[in-house]
């Protein structure tokens, strides 16, 4: 549905997007992840025909953004970084205008406006001036505007920025419910958002593509070994953490043990397994066998946060190493 090949975008001096290629299948939700200034907004602007690419190509539903922009625009709903709102219009009036602008027939407009108002929970502010709405409500009107003409492809630039926690959850659900008949690409720098609502993630940093994969694959690829957090309790008498530690290290498959915290008669550890070993059952048995109580045992997944830091740090690390080589 979306096909990007060798996309490069250069502003006067800055190279904002540098040779990015990716594809998105129909019906997928893809998260576009990157730190500030990574080039997310720029890529989205190229996809929506707002900016022409400097080099490379982008296709939406088989139409090239440079050659057939009108066909592309018909199929795209776009929520820009700042919602494109007219402060002196009422919400309902604004949505009707956008509906007609997007080519809906005048019979369809009121019907669709009602629908999106319900979906985005803005029915109660329909008669209000947009200029008098709170930031979160503006964001919702922006989202309503993007899905109004039921486009095949949705491009959402930070759709949940400025929303309250309840609304964030609702918006994520809304986005998930739109997947299937819509192909969605959303940008964010909140990693948990990608974990929650996306099937695939594309990570970019400083204009370059760092990784693209499914969320689970990406986690597994970087993790390799299992990490487990333990909290151990001794009901009668004090606990000698050195002893516990020794005991844990003896368990088969454990590569190393880190003491996290001790308090009176309880202590917590983080245990890492050897590559490809599962150690939770063994650990539990060892602890209980020694007469201690197991207060908590949970696997610690590598969060996207960690993945992200690893990937972007690696990117930054490379040139430094090269420099050192030159010196040597």
């Amino acid at each position, binding site marked *: 549905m979306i096909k990007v090949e060798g996309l490069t975008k250069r502003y006067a001096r800055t190279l904002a997007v540098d040779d990015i290629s990716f594809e998105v299948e129909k019906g997928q939700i893809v998260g576009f992840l990157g730190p500030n200034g990574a080039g997310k907004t720029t890529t989205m602007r190229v996809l*929506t*025909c707002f900016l022409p690419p400097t080099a490379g190509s982008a296709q939406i539903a088989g139409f090239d953004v440079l050659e057939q922009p009108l066909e592309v*625009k018909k199929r795209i709903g776009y929520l*820009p970084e700042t919602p*494109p709102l*007219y*402060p002196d219009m009422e919400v309902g*009036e604004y949505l009707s205008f956008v509906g007609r*602008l997007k080519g809906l027939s005048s019979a369809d407009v009121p019907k669709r406006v009602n629908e999106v108002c319900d979906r985005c929970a803005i029915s109660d502010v329909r008669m209000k001036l947009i200029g008098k709405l709170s930031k979160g409500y503006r964001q919702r009107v922006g989202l309503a505007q993007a899905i109004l003409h039921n486009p095949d492809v949705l491009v959402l630039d930070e759709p949940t920025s400025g929303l309250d926690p309840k609304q964030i959850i609702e918006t994520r659900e809304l986005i998930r419910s739109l997947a299937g008949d819509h192909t969605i690409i959303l940008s964010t720098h909140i990693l948990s958002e990608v974990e929650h609502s996306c099937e695939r993630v594309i990570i970019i940093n400083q204009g370059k593509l760092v990784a693209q994969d499914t969320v689970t694959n990406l986690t597994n690829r970087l993790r390799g070994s299992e990490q487990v957090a333990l909290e151990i309790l001794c009901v009668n008498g004090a606990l000698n953490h050195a002893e516990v530690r020794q005991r844990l290290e003896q368990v088969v498959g454990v590569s190393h043990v880190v003491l996290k915290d001790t308090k009176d008669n309880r202590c917590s550890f983080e245990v890492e397994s050897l590559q490809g070993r599962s150690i939770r059952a063994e650990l539990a048995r060892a602890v209980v066998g020694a007469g201690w109580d197991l207060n908590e045992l949970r696997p610690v997944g590598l969060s996207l946060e960690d993945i992200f830091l690893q990937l972007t740090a690696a990117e930054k690390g490379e040139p430094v190493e090269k420099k050192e080589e030159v010196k040597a």
Partner: protein
Amino acid sequence: MRNVIVIFTKEMKSYFASPIAYLLLTIFAVIFGFFFYSATRFFVLQGMQMQMMGRGMPMDVNEYVIRPLLTNASVIGLFLIPMITMRLYAEEQRSGTIELLMTSPVRDLEIVLGKWLAALVLYAAILGISGINMGLLFAFGRPDWKPILVGYLGLMLQGGCLLAIGIFISTMTRNQIVAGGATFAVCLMLWVLDWVSAYDQSAWAKVISYLSVVTHFEPFAKGVIDSKDVIFYLSMIFFGLFLTSRSVESLRWRS
């Protein structure tokens, strides 16, 4: 065409949702009302003097009242036009709504036309106020109505041409005030270019004076339609709108 109407309707609503349209209508009504009052008063006094001196020659309302009034209207228009056009693109760029317009399945030229038409209709509405004054003349006298219509045609053509220039300037900045100021400067320039011909008869002076929008308005005020002037205005409008749509297109490359 449908898209042009969509944009036109939106612009029209936003003119009347903000105080700008009412402000412009009031300014025009007051200033034109003042001119109308002095022109008619002068005319009546002159008429009375003539009669006292025993010359019964009736004075021509068209020549002594309507013609100067039409010229005045065109000058007031010069001052109002920057205020009509300054926000059209500058504001869309500043608030980011340009992203909505330019990612919608609408051609750049359709947006430009819609905006220009809305500006033209507002300008016509403003001129419409002077129609009330002109109507009064018909109540008390028998002026010839044909030159008046020609005069208004001229006003609209001149307005259309300056509005196109104003929209073009509005695409070049995200600051309304800058757009308004620059448009005003250009309108003023086009107006005073005519003065060159007063002291200079060289070919250059002729070319420069040809570019003055005022030179081409004078025949209309006299009630004369000269195809040369109509063509001048129409080509200026065409050229202005063409430049605007190119400038909008280049926004993509510039930003």
